[in-house]
């Protein structure tokens, strides 16, 4: 087809579904997680260099931004884990019916927040 024919609108007009939303979030959290894991590796290597580094980073984690990053990372990992479990079931051939995929999608979305809160509370040592 000639190039001067216009392209019909796509993502601008297409409705979001639960499944497409979870899918794009799965990708975004995947990229975030790679970055975060790399940073965690740097963090661990820095600790080897002594006490001063530990306190510097510890102080950063006490700030609002630091806390936001920690909680955000926890959510990102929670989302990725739940969504990946959903993908594993798909790979086995289960859960493709529209209703079921919508339910599992909602479980992933809400479950990721619940899991984040759970991990946060667990980290505070309330269960110990």
């Amino acid at each position, binding site marked *: *087809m*000639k190039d*001067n*024919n*216009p*392209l*019909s*609108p*796509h*993502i*601008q*007009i*297409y*409705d979001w*579904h639960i*499944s*497409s939303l979870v*899918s794009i979030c799965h*990708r975004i959290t995947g990229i975030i997680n790679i970055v975060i894991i790399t940073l965690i590796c740097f963090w661990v290597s820095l600790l080897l260099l002594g006490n001063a580094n530990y306190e510097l980073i510890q102080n950063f984690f006490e700030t609002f931004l630091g806390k936001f990053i920690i909680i955000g990372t926890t959510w990102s990992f929670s989302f990725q884990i739940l969504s990946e479990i959903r*993908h594993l079931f*798909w*790979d*086995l*051939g289960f859960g*493709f*019916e*529209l209703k079921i*995929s919508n339910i599992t999608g909602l479980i992933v979305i809400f479950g990721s927040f619940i899991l984040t809160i759970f991990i946060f509370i667990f980290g505070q040592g309330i269960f110990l």
Partner: protein
Amino acid sequence: MVQINLPKNSKIQKGKYYKDKTGSKNIRKVNVYRWDPSNGENPRIDTYEVDMDNCPSKVLDLLNKIKNEIDPSIAYRRSCAHGVCGSCAMNMDGKNGLACTKSHKEIKGDINIYPLPHLRVQKDLIGDLSTLYKQYESVEPWLKNSKKDETKENLQSIEDRSKLDGLYECIMCACCSTSCPSYWWNGDKYLGPAVLLQAYRWIIDSRDEERKERLKKVADELKLYRCHTIMNCTNACPKGLNPAKAIASIKKMLATS
């Protein structure tokens, strides 16, 4: 390649406004994507006020009414009007479907009608599907069987036949393929849900003798594995089929064989 924004010549402009002339009190606004290949202008959205008291129930009826009574220049494909031919596939209210089976009562607010997403527009609501048809041809959608005897039936058990249920009903309307973001970005290489569902229909057919070759042909990073189970295809299918499941079945067959 992912390109979120529309190219320059595809930016949508504001179009004409057709005011209601019947004096009816039951009026709905219908926004329709228009593009005229003859004048070199950008696409536009025309708005029609339609008298709903004298309009049958489906979106296709609405378009027919506009074409017959308000603006005869509007172009769209349609044929059977019973959800069998797949000609009137378009994007209504942000979702792909067949205009002849979609009731306009289901749509709240103004009715927005666009051509199928991410296609080269030929005119108004008509998109160019030739790439999809070429891809369909590439999966060789016909029975391959070495039996030359034409006096005997080619029998199939009830169980084998039931494997084709949910596949043979596909009418190739392209609602699923054009709803798939993966197909938007890689439409030239990725086969898309419609064609992969058809490919699976021949792979799973017990009478076909070239299952292995068919599987081998489709097992490709771009052709098949661009499916990320976004499930827009299953959400869009006006016949209630499940292309996502068919694609997953192909992947599973490849992984286990």
